[in-house]
């Protein structure tokens, strides 16, 4: 399970909130729970990596701006 390309923090946290809300409301049954938790953990990990790790792609764009 991965996140879509170009996902924004806003979309990620929106989805995380949705999952939390669903779980708070006891919406998913026990079988769905693990799927939901897995998805949430993927999103959280994605956010954390993006916060802390350098993305080469962004650095590249930054360098191109530098030249102009």
């Amino acid at each position, binding site marked *: 399970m991965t996140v879509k390309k170009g996902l924004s923090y806003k979309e990620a946290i929106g989805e995380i909130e949705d999952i939390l809300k669903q779980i708070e409301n006891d919406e998913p049954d026990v079988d769905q729970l693990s799927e939901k938790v897995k998805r949430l953990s993927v999103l*959280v990990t994605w*956010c954390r990596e993006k916060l802390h790790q350098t993305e080469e792609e962004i650095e590249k764009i930054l360098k191109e701006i530098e030249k102009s």
Partner: protein
Amino acid sequence: MAERLSLSELNGAVKKVLATNFTAPVWVVGEISEINIHSNGHCYLTLIEKGESEDRIVAQARATIWSYTFRMLRPFFETTTGQQLTDGIKVLLQVSVEFHEMYGFSLNVRNIDPTYTLGDQALKRREIIRRLTEDGVLTMNKELELPLVPQKIAIISSPSAAGYEDFMEQLTNNGNGYKFYTKLFPAVMQGNQAEQSIVEALDRIYPYEDFFDVVVIIRGGGSQVDLSCFDNYNIAYHITQFPLPVLSGIGHEKDDSIADLVAHTRLKTPTAVAEFILDGVAAFEDRINLMQQETISLVENRLEEEKNLLEDLTGELSKLVRDQLGNKKRELMQRTWRFQQEIKLTLQNSEHRLGKKLQKAGFLVDRIFYVHRQKIEKARNMIHVTIPGSLQGKREQMDHYLLKFRHLSVRGIGNEIHRIELAGQKAMLSDPANILKKGYSITTVRGILVKDIALLKSDEVMNTRFSDGAVLSKIIEIKQSDKNDS
């Protein structure tokens, strides 16, 4: 011929007149059009007065602030107004009017009233705010949504500014190890060139609005700052119209400039801007961590609940089953007991009834026996009295009958034997073999025994059996005898 004066005499006379008329210093309002600070510490100014239309100078004078005075006046003015003593601002100066034979008319600045400049500045600011409000743009940048994580930052600053270094230091060496992408768009941050330079920097960022999250305008801290260039309509207008949120860290403790006012978020110093950004990112990370923890604990609780529920249900079920079984067993036992009781009772009743009936029957039988015995007794008695004579007679009669029966029987059997013997002889005579031996024959045609001649046809083959063989013969002629002959 008129009296001739030497130039020095004339200048001396003017000086004398001025000195007589301007014995005390006067307060004069003027706009600084030029300012030069000499290396020896003296400050030379050109003061002007503009006409109503602001494009025409109606008066001009030179002024001097001697180094001793300037050393005191300058910080006083700048700390009070929050801006440098520079060209383009209006000032209220206390001056003594002087005239030098060599250098001419000049004003010697003794004192300065910063409140005048402040008032003038405030007036100018109010005017700018009024215009921005009228244009309907004053709060436009504030209405933009600040990104959750402002990670890509366009910086407008002077590369040499201490504030820029502070900002970068704070941001890149943050304790949480967050990654930021920054790009400096250099600009002149003070003086008359600032307006154009800052607007140009914004224009250079504009093509990358999709890339950057936020724009930061910062410059060096300290009290020696000139805010006046940020009280500028053009800069303010460009900030309000910018499609990205603008964070200002222009750096003045006391007053907000117009740029601060229209920026999305106003912060006092470049360091404060960096902290603001870092706090935002940390808040975001906290939020996702918290949500993750909350989810985990919710899920754990949920699973625990489900487990308990299941256990409860299992417990309830087995209790229910146990109870039901117990109830059924008790019921069964009760029924069995009741049944047994009923059977016992019924049996007892039946037994009782039977006993009664038996008793009754016993009585009845006894009575019948009794009655019959009575009758028998009676009859016996009667027999004893009446029978002996007739009994003798009956015996004789019986003997007679017996004799007669024997006689009849013997005769009858002899007759029967004779009859059977006759029948045997008769049967012997009628056997066909015996008949054939006597000379008779049996004729058949088409397997049919010929008893009637009408059955026969000419040329038919006839089978005639004799006692010792058979002959097949063809009929040549049929002669029917008269009926009378037979």
